[in-house]
């Protein structure tokens, strides 16, 4: 890194934030839902670059796959189902919100003046707990990616909650959309006269690559940016792409709805099961140091996994491995469930489509 990199970071920060504000204003202004969705996707894209500038690589990863990918697809699925026209504007409906928003904004500006300067390394945020994580991770967890260490180990309970939130969303969408008319899913077309050869071939090439890449992100999460959640969403993208290109019918035949739902459940069970195993072995819930009973731990030769990974970290490593796997399963399966819900609900009456 050179001095110029710092200046570039500074400039990028400002430029990207201004871009975000511009996109936000455009979203507020547009009356077309589709335009709003497209702009929202662009907002996510731009904010993810900003996140990289802010050193939040893991978050950028997530925002990229969730904001630009899954959210856009889900929103598209939704506006197809509601067949909404342009948003109606009513000037009377703009005054009260404007007053409210200005009030909240005023309070926020007042609050912001009390914050420490942006980027201050000595601010309470950066000096207290955050710094302790950076210092202690090597000793206590032993993975290079501190974000993964905090996510999966120090604050593993939050992550369990997050996984459960995803699971709950899957249940919610299934309750709403899962039992409706999944009638007449169209068959795959005959091969003749197919003029989407480009897309079909590209998709065929990409789908296995996407799955492979998901597993790379999963197992590389200790060392670099990535982890169960990101990998889960990427993994879900593979069947979604398959459904988009080759039709939902074939995808559901390969990955039945119930099976996918069960996988989501298995993920949560795996995660909480790790916690319970730790408890049975005498530790607290999710205390991975107790993942293996002492008798097993004693059998592990100290240098087995290389110098930094002494026996104490064994449990942490495997604990993180298993819970990230649980997150992967739940997230991937739930995202597919959600997609099934929106794509599979054939709401249009015959002939209603354009």
């Amino acid at each position, binding site marked *: 890194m050179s001095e110029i990199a710092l200046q570039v970071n500074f400039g990028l920060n400002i430029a990207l934030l201004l871009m975000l504000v511009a996109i936000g204003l455009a979203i507020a202004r547009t009356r077309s839902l589709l335009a709003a969705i497209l702009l929202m996707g662009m907002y996510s894209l731009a904010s993810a670059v900003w996140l990289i500038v802010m050193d939040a690589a893991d978050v950028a990863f997530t925002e990229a796959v969730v904001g630009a990918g899954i959210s856009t697809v889900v929103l598209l699925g939704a506006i197809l189902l509601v067949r909404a026209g342009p948003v109606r504007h009513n000037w009377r409906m703009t005054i009260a919100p404007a007053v409210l928003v200005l009030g909240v904004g005023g*309070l*926020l500006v*007042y*609050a*912001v*003046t*009390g*914050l*420490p300067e942006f980027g201050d390394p000595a*601010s*309470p*945020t*950066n000096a*207290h*707990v*955050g710094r*302790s*994580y950076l210092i*202690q991770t090597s000793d*206590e967890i032993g993975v290079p990616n501190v974000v993964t260490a905090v996510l999966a*180990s*120090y*604050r*593993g*309970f*939050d992550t*369990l*909650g*997050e996984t*459960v*939130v995803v*699971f*709950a*969303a899957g*249940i*919610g*969408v*299934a*309750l*709403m959309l*899962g*039992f409706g008319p999944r009638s007449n899913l169209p068959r795959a077309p005959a091969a003749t006269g197919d003029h989407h050869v480009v897309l079909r071939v590209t998709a065929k090439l990409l789908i296995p690559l996407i799955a492979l890449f998901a597993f790379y992100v999963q197992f590389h999460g200790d060392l670099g940016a990535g982890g169960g959640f990101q990998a889960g969403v990427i993994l879900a993208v593979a069947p979604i792409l398959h459904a988009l290109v080759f039709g939902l019918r074939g995808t559901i035949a390969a990955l039945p709805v119930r099976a996918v*739902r*069960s996988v989501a*459940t*298995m993920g*949560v*069970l795996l995660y*909480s099961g790790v*916690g*319970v195993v730790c*408890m049975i072995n005498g*530790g*607290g*819930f*999710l*205390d*991975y*140091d*107790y993942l293996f009973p002492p008798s097993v731990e004693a059998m592990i030769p100290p240098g087995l996994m290389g110098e930094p990974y002494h026996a104490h970290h064994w449990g942490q490593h495997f604990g993180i491995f298993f819970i990230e796997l649980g997150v992967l399963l739940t997230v991937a399966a739930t995202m597919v469930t959600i997609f099934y819900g929106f794509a599979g609900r054939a709401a249009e009456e015959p002939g209603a489509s354009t």
Partner: protein
Amino acid sequence: MILFEALYVAPPALTAQAPILVIAGPLIGACAAALSPGGRTAWMVSMLTAAFALWMAVAVAGEVAREDVIDYALGGFAPPMGIALRIDALGATMALLVASIGVMGALYSGHALESEVKAEKHTLFQSGYLLCLAGFLGLVFTGDAFNAFVFLEVSSIGTYALVAVGEARDRRALPAAFNYLIFGTVGATLYVLGVGFLYAATGTLNMVDMAMRLATLGDNSAVQAGLAFVVAGLGVKAAMFPLHGWLPGAYAGAPSLVSVFLAATATKAAIYLIIRFVFDVFPEGEFGEIFLSWILAPLAAAAVIICSVQAVFEKEVRRILAFSSVAQVGFILLGVSLATPAGLSAGVFYLVAHALMKGALFMAVGAFAISVRARTVEDFSGIAREAPWSAAAFGVGAASLGGVPLTMGFLAKWSLVSAALETGEIWIVAVLAIGSLLTLIYVGRMLEAMFFRAPGRGAERAREAPVGVLAPLFVLAGLSLWFGVDATLPVSMVNASVSALVGAAP
């Protein structure tokens, strides 16, 4: 506490882990329910899990009675680094309340679901129900501000869908659920924003650590706004007066099981968290006092008056009960805003009383709904003749709501009034009196229609609800009565709770 000694039969190994088992039990149960082959199995899973959670909650309460405060470090990391559960007497009381309502709801769902939710949805519904239960229990136990947000969302996301499932009976459930989702998410986001400001000021998310650091820091604009956002965000969830717009529709539209569960736990858990922040985390000083007496108290008073009036003019029974809930939240917050030990314990006692009686009332309405599709007070007229037992339970709940002597509601109102008199805040006494009068009016309207009129169109076809529904209903109504006569148990728990809080009172 003798009761706990008697009930407290959990083996020591379980007791040590009881705080987390209270939360993890329903979580794992939710998975099992989702995997189970049919609605019946899911219901059994639901029952077992809720009972397990209650058992563990009792164990926790016994432990708290002995040790005052339990800290449970998750993942083996001490608090500011890791997440810790922190349970004091108030938390234990709330957990007992939530878990008991959870068991009653699970028992009740055996029959109630069949008439209101399509059979194919039963497994997922039970799973969602257990997730909500886990969410509320986690919310009550956690000692970490951000973890509270996660549990807030665990419970909320499940709740939105569960409310919307009520569309099978009443399609107004759908927009109500959507409204709830919008309000709830804005509330949760405001909460996160507030926690963000507090985090920026203190650098920690653990509530105890945060309180310690705030005490030395004093307040600056970030802290003040942070607290304001936290309370506003939780206020949405707690249906604090101007932020209650989501509640009437949601309670009226949801399947009756969900109404029971929400009315008895959702707003209560949020109020609990408000109390937690106001008394444990807020730095002592002018800001806290100004907040309590100039913002919280007037809003609570407005809620009592305005929403009671709305309840008086409402036609549909469920909506009356829903508006009444907002008004009763006002009663509770009035007690809290007094910030004296007496006021606080009156507020907490009222909270428990309201949970029991509102649970009983919604459950009774659900019991009627099994046989008849009645909505308005007119529809319910004369129903007491066709379904006497459910109506009797409804009557007990309504009497408690109206503050008739020998019910828990009476004791609650009485202690509120005496606490207000003690502080000399006459206007609060006046508000309480007007509110109680209005409550009597709408309660009287419902009871008059049910018990003293000839059966109307709807009530003629009414039949008594099955035992599976009557049993939990009678437990809730009976508790309202029993605690109205002999309130030793709740009073001792509430007093313990308040003495845990009041040291830090502003």
